[in-house]
Structure formats: C-alpha cells, structure tokens
C-alpha cells in the first residue's frame, strides 16, 4: 500500500520538480523584448531611410525608379530641379516630395534594389505600429537621415 502510494504520488512529483530544477539553470530562451532587443539578421528589411553622402548632400535624385519597382505602389516621388543656389543632391534633380505609405509597403526591398544611387535603404527599426491611419504616410522629412557632423 505505502509502496504503491510512493510510486504513484511521490515519484511523479519528484520527477516533475526534477525537470523544473534542471531547466532553471539552462540558458533562457525568452528575449525580454521592451528592455532588450533580439539581434536582427543582417539583411532584415524594415523601416526605410533616405541616406546622404558624407558631404551632407542627399543621395536621392528623384528618378522615381523606386516607385516604378514597388509592387504595392506605395511610394510617391515628386522631383524638382537643383539650382546652384539651392543644391540638395549632386545630380540635376532632387526629390521635392518623397512619401511612403507604410501600411501599403510590404518591405520587399525592391526599391532598395532599383535605386541607382543607393539613396533608399531598409534598416532594422521595426517599431512602426501606430493608432491613426494618417500617421503612416512617411514624408521625406521623416525618412531622411539627419546630417552627420
């Protein structure tokens, strides 16, 4: 009777807590997200950034090739002519307006592939969720990288 009790009740408890005890000292798999971030893969494609040359000039020349390559048609580019007084990019033209609809975008990276100057790149900032639909139209000011000193 008591042997049966030991086998049926005590042994499973010991086995169960044994597993718990062993797992306690293993490496934790959970990434404590808001405090720590998991390492993103090298080719992760998330938020777009419009980059600059080291001189501070914009790389984007307003050619709209990204908009043409976009399968979701989420990019709008409006080009304007550079003048000697107001020079934004090294080429003839620059993007006067550059807008991306982040809700339409599927982050395929075709815009990055199509860009002849490497102006638009997709980086690893994934925290894009928001409350209002209007907040997802990312304008050129939001996308453009700040000038490095």
């Amino acid at each position, binding site marked *: 009777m008591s042997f049966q009790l030991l086998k049926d009740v005590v042994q499973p408890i010991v086995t169960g807590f044994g597993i718990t005890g062993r797992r306690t000292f293993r490496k934790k*798999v*959970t*990434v*404590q*997200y*808001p405090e720590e*971030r*998991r390492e993103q893969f090298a080719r992760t494609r*998330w938020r777009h950034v419009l980059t600059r040359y080291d001189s501070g000039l914009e790389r984007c020349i307003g050619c709209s090739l990204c908009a043409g390559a976009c*399968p*979701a*048609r989420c990019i709008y580019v409006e080009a304007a002519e550079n003048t000697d007084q107001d020079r934004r990019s090294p080429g003839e033209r620059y993007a006067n307006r550059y807008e991306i*609809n*982040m*809700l*339409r*975008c*599927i*982050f*395929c990276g075709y815009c990055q592939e199509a860009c002849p100057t490497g102006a638009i790149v997709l980086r690893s900032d*994934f*925290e*894009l*969720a*928001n*409350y209002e*639909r209007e907040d*997802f139209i990312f304008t050129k000011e939001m996308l453009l990288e700040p000038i490095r000193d």
Partner: protein
Amino acid sequence: MPKRVETLVLHDSATPVLGDIQKGGSVVVTNSKSLLEQLNVLNGARAHCLWPLTFGLACCAIEMMATVSSRFDLSRFGSEAFRATPRQADVMIIAGRVSKKMAPVLRQIYDQMPEPKWVISMGACASSGGVYNNYAIVQGADQVVPVDVYVPGCPPSPDALMYAFLKLQNKIKAQSFTDKHQLRMSETKARTLETV
C-alpha cells in the same frame, strides 16, 4: 484633476488617503471611482490581461503564433490566452488579408465580442490591402470594424506585434475607465446619478 464630490469622508489628518485633494485637512473630499481612476488600477488590469481572439486569416497568423512561443512570450504581457470564441476575447488581431467574402464574418465576430473590445490590424493586407489592390480584398479592415492599432509589415515580426500590444496597452491606460464613448460601449442612454 478633482472629481465630482460624492461622499464626504471624515478622518484624522495623520492617515494618508490616496486621492487626497486637501492637504493635511480634517475633511477629505473623495469618492471611490476617482480613487480607482487615479490609481489606474482598473485600466491597468484591463490592459494587462488582453485575451486575443484567434483570428488568423493568412500568413500573418504564423507570426501571431510565433509571438506566443517561448522566445517572444506574449504571456509576459498577459495575452497568452488565445480564445477561439469571440465571447471570451478582448482584442481581435486581424492577421491577414480580409477578403470581401470574409468581411461580414469579421463584422459578426467583432459584434459578438463583449465590450470593451479592441482591434489590432496586423500586417499590410489587413491594414490597407497591401499588394492586393484588387476586386477581392477589402482595402483596409477599418472599413469593416474600428481599428485601434495598425501594425505595418509583411508580415510583422513577433517583436513588431508585441510593440503593437504595448501601444494598445498604453492606449487603454490613457482611456477613461468609465467613458462609454471611448470604450465603444453600446449603451447610448447614460444614466445620471439621480436616477441611479
């Protein structure tokens, strides 16, 4: 913010009372509702036990499932209990493209959820139609149900969905616990204190 005076509580000034409006006085004007609201207990409780509805429509559902896995562990925010019935769910994650055939089903399931309820539109397709700009897909789930948080991405990674959950929690905490308009309660005739 001082609330409407409902009860007068007499107590000695040595006992600190949460929600004190007068400092060190003998008479403290307070009421239980404002106490709880100032503590933000109820909204916190609401925000930290959001039970999602299992509503995967496409590939986004795979990432939604991965969010509950041990690596990301949505249960850290109290949302691990995915419910297959709308009657037990608080938040609906629309994960995937909503076809026009699915739209009435989506609306019906949303209506069956008990209030207060929230909606996360996960991914490009649910939020705006994404690449599927065609006759079959609803161009944004907000044409069918009111959406609280949109998550861009195709599909959003589990981290991105968790960020959306954090955003939703912030939204709930900022809401008034009793404001029926904010909570989209169906009750339209608000009762005054006198009738109660």
